[in-house]
């Protein structure tokens, strides 16, 4: 049976792509962010995942407002990164795992999650950059991937409570996959930031740190909030913390914190990073 080795949640802003392309890892502005990752890579070397299930939100690369799925799951042999309009380098294609994708799709629909399934799916910086941060030295991503995309563009967005339930069902679906693969869940987005409006530049350290702590000790804490309340507390794009919540839920019962990092700012964003491992 498949085994979930743990979950990694990280921020995903496009500027990270520019910093990687420009080799700015040691630059004083970027160093506190990039320094968070070596311990994650060390952990990955130990737990050796074969597959990454990546929970992220599309920023207008694959989906437009003509058809906006609430939850979409990839079921392709390969996923392509592409031009998003602002010139960060396009990364090489990602291998899919169609067996696991369809197993997950079948299980989630069985559990009443009405998904959109995608046999073609462009993956944007929210998918590509976190994987590049996890495996920087490998020219192509060394694990197979299953993309899970949650709408954060057009309201109504699925609630925190719903995303938690999705994550829980996703974890159960993966664990029931009849193949001896090791799976890491990667959740990308957040933490607090706001790109648009007169309140642009808003971040909220206290809330972010409380949220990160809650993932370990009180995982359903954030499900008490509506998305409007989350926006109020974390900014218009801070609502991307929904990906973190779904990732945590996929890990089940209790977890141990392996590693974390938090730094303000990268670009307009409060950058968070956490690695969690299921207990027992």
């Amino acid at each position, binding site marked *: 049976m498949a085994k979930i080795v743990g979950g990694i949640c990280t921020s995903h802003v496009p500027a990270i792509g520019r910093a990687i392309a420009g080799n700015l890892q040691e630059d004083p502005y970027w160093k506190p962010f990039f320094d968070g990752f070596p311990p994650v890579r060390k952990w990955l070397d130990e737990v050796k995942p074969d597959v990454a299930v990546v929970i992220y939100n599309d920023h207008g690369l694959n989906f437009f407002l003509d058809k906006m799925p609430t939850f979409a799951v990839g079921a392709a042999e390969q996923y392509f990164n592409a031009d998003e*309009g*602002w010139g960060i380098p396009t990364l090489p294609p990602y291998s899919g795992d169609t067996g696991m994708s369809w197993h997950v799709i079948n299980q989630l629909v069985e559990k009443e999650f009405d998904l959109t399934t995608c046999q073609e799916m462009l993956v944007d910086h929210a998918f590509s950059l976190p994987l590049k941060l996890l495996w920087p030295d490998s020219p192509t991503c060394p694990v197979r991937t299953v993309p899970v995309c949650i709408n954060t563009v057009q309201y109504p967005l699925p609630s925190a409570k719903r995303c938690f339930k999705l994550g829980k069902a996703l974890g159960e679906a993966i664990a029931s996959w009849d193949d001896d693969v090791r799976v890491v869940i990667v959740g990308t987005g957040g933490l607090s930031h706001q*790109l648009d409006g007169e*309140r*642009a530049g808003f971040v909220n350290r206290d809330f972010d740190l409380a949220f990160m702590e809650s993932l370990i000790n009180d995982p359903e804490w954030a499900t008490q909030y509506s998305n409007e309340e989350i*926006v109020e507390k974390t900014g218009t*794009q801070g609502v991307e913390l929904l990906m973190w919540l779904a990732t945590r839920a996929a890990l089940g019962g209790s977890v141990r914190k392996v590693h974390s990092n938090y730094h303000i700012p990268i670009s307009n964003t409060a950058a968070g990073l956490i690695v969690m491992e299921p207990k027992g």
Partner: protein
Amino acid sequence: MTATAARREIPGTRIFDAEMAQKGYALNKMCYSFNSADNRSAFSRDEDAYCRQYGLNAEQTEAIRTRNVLGLLAAGGNVYYLAKFAGILGLDVQDLGAAQTGMTKEAFKAMLVAAGKVD
């Protein structure tokens, strides 16, 4: 009672809901097209013609012409798509932040750095 009557007010913040998604459809569709380099150069060759081709209304065309970020948002623009328009202009999200808050980019960046200092 309208569908949006219960909308929560957050200062300096808009929720991209059904009303905005309808209002901004043409504008956002144009910005979505900027994922393609060919479309970006077609826009740059003749901005007005490109706006007409996508059916932008007068408010949206004017906000594009004047690079008015808050105006684009008010006209139904969604920041995820508008970021692609900013890309054509060579602006990043910190330029956008400065433009929307009326700060210089340096001051905007300094505000974020200050927010990261633990007191």
